[in-house]
């Protein structure tokens, strides 16, 4: 039996990116919500709730980048130059928020104020930059001769701004739901309010982005049954569960908030992201650099993919195992005297 290595690797990279979005999504979301906290003490708790896990969460981003390099070098070599400026913006923003975890504890008055600001601004900046990359990716990348051949600001359009706004709302929703899950008392109540507002924003923006996406590229419209002649129900119907999943996710958030559940809203938020993610995957497949290069063309040499498959088959279960274990260790509510920093 021969394995379809490029397909397996496309699935693995897609899974890594999805895990990144869900995991770093909530801790970036906590950063986005930072300015709305009532007091420094609340901000301390917010940070404490993610301090033990943010580094592991961000490692999925490194796996996304490093994995793309290793499994689909052609895609990596085209996409990175295409999104040069937003990627650099993302990296700089991640630096600011990443060091803020430690620096905020060591800064004195002005230093601490600065790192509080840096954490919030870095989280927001990284999210917006990721939104630009995502939006630019959906718009499609100009390629000639196996290289990026577009303009430096191709990724900056009304559409990508809309996507960035949607991602900010989405991460804020994940962050708010995470805080509801992990905190109590007043902060929990605030998080509930933030989650409700974010969920409403996500509902509106997700709908707007979905509609706008149909107009971005005819191929996407085609996939969803909106051909030049009109609407083809037979094409659309098999895809219907995807938007329904998103609606169900928002429903879980809404009911969870209504019933004052602590954990369910986070699951609902994750479902919303899952639906958006699958929706995009369905729209693109098999492109890895929309809309010119498919994942088979971009795939690395089969012996490299084969070697790495051995590695990941052994290592990924271990990684997932100890990641779950770490979350388990830090389960439960974070209190003001949590015994963190």
């Amino acid at each position: 039996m021969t394995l379809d290595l490029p397909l397996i690797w496309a699935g693995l990279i897609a899974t890594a990116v999805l895990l990144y979005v869900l995991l770093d999504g909530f801790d970036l979301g906590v950063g986005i919500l930072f300015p709305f906290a009532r007091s420094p003490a609340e901000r301390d708790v917010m940070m404490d709730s993610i301090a033990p896990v943010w580094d592991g969460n961000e490692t999925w981003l490194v796996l996304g980048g490093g994995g793309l390099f290793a499994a689909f070098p052609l895609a990596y070599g085209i996409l990175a130059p295409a999104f040069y400026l937003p990627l650099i913006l993302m990296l700089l923003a991640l630096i600011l928020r990443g060091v803020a975890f430690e620096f905020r504890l060591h800064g004195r008055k002005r230093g601490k104020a600065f790192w509080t600001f840096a954490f919030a601004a870095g989280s927001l900046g990284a999210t917006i930059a990721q939104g630009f990359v995502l939006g630019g990716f959906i718009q499609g990348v100009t390629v000639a001769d196996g290289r990026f051949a577009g303009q430096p600001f191709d990724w900056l359009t009304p559409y990508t701004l809309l996507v960035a706004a949607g991602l900010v709302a989405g991460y804020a929703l994940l962050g708010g739901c995470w805080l509801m899950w992990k905190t109590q008392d007043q902060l929990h109540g605030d998080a509930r309010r933030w989650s409700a507002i974010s969920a409403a924003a996500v509902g509106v923006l997700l709908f707007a982005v979905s509609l706008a996406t149909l107009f971005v590229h005819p191929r996407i419209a085609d996939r969803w049954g909106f051909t030049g002649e009109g609407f083809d129900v037979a094409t659309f119907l098999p895809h219907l569960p995807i938007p329904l999943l998103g609606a169900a996710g928002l429903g879980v958030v809404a009911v969870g908030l209504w019933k004052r559940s602590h954990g369910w809203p986070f699951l609902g938020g994750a479902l919303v992201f899952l639906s958006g993610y699958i929706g995009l995957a369905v729209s693109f497949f098999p492109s890895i650099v929309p809309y010119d290069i498919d994942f088979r063309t971009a795939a690395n040499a089969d012996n490299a993919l084969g070697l790495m498959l051995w590695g990941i088959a052994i290592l990924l279960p271990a990684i997932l195992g100890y990641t779950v274990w770490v979350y388990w260790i830090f389960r439960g509510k974070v209190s003001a005297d949590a015994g963190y920093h």
Partner: protein
Amino acid sequence: MDFDAILLARLQFAFTIAFHIIFPSFTIGLASFLAVLEGLWLGTRREVFRNLYLFWVKIFALSFGMGVVSGVVMSYELGTNWSEFSKMAAPVIGPLLAFEVLTAFFLEASFLGVMLFGWKKVGPKLHFTATVLVAIGTFISAFWILSANSWMQHPTGYEMLADGTLRATDWMAVIFSPTFPSRLAHMSLAAFLTTSLVVGAASAWQLLKDRTQPESRMALRMAVGMFAIVAPLQLVAGHYSGETVREHQPLKLAAIEAYWKTRADQPQSLVGIPDRDAAKTHYEIEIPGIGNLIQGVSKDTVLQGLDSFPREDWPVVGLVYWSFRIMVGLGLAMIALGAWGVWLIWRRRVDDAGGFLWATVAMGPTGFIAVIAGWIVAEVGRQPWTIYGVLRTADSVSPVGVGQISASLLAFMIIYAIVFSAGGLYILRLIARGPAPALAEPPPDGEGRAPGSPLAAAPAEPREV
């Protein structure tokens, strides 16, 4: 691609990677030091080891954080600035970098959380395990990145296909390319040296203020013992690394030693100003007749000079030549400091030896300087190639305009200036305050911080903002 874009892309990469390497070269050693301290504490239950652990883990948390964020940059910069290199090299070294993420980064990142925040949540043995796993992770990371870099220095185990792409033919030959083992040993020892010099300097600084401070007395002895052993070992490892350079990268050796002419019985240049255009060294002090001896070959062995290679392949000779001399000079100073320290400890005079303590303080940052100088020798010495003999730097660069690269370079400089001066300041403040044994006992619940948390030993400051 025009010249300015290449130069700017190189400057940006050099800038970001030079900043990055500072942190791993410190945290690799520091993670091991922490594992030893925690192991000693668990074994002996002597307070001094726990206090030292709680003190250094704070500095570790700061440095590791800076290492992580400056390292994430590298994984994307390969694509943003060197997309052509990425496409070319990925079939061979792609798996090596993927394995680095899978075997090292996740391990470090996940167990770092337990190490920093888990003291109350897990038992002491499990916490110790987390520390050890973080320390192991730092070495695994060094293993893969040096493996990939060594392959770029002297590629083996691959073939070039008809369409110009590369393909690995022998993974073991790719991973264990000839220059790799000695370079891994050289870098690992460098990390231990760097850390022990910093620990030594921080402890000496405390002892200059209070020579009875028990934690600093212990740490100074551990540090001196470490660099007294490792510095001479490093000379040996460096020599072996040099032999592989002679064997596999003769051009680099010619640049390091400013051998302009191919000849037997090379003279040993001590100092001078190499002039690449004139192909000679100005104001040179050299010792004739011992060059071959130092390279470990007989006098009548012909050692290739720069004249054996086309001029367009020459690296920047002066930079390689001087970086090498700075590295070796500092290494010799470290050996001397180690010998001095051991003698003083043996004579039981080390805590009062003001001259030695000041010298140890002054030598504190020299590990970092030597590491960066050594990497300049390795990387500039490989120029003008990214993959030696296969792909030139000029052909590796991304199709990205000067405007974007210069704007991002400027942004990197500003952000790094803020982040790394603040981080440096916080670390120096901690070092100036020193280990605080009296406060190591966790305050009663309700206002306390976990003993395992980096701030556990610090007084509970009012939390504002």
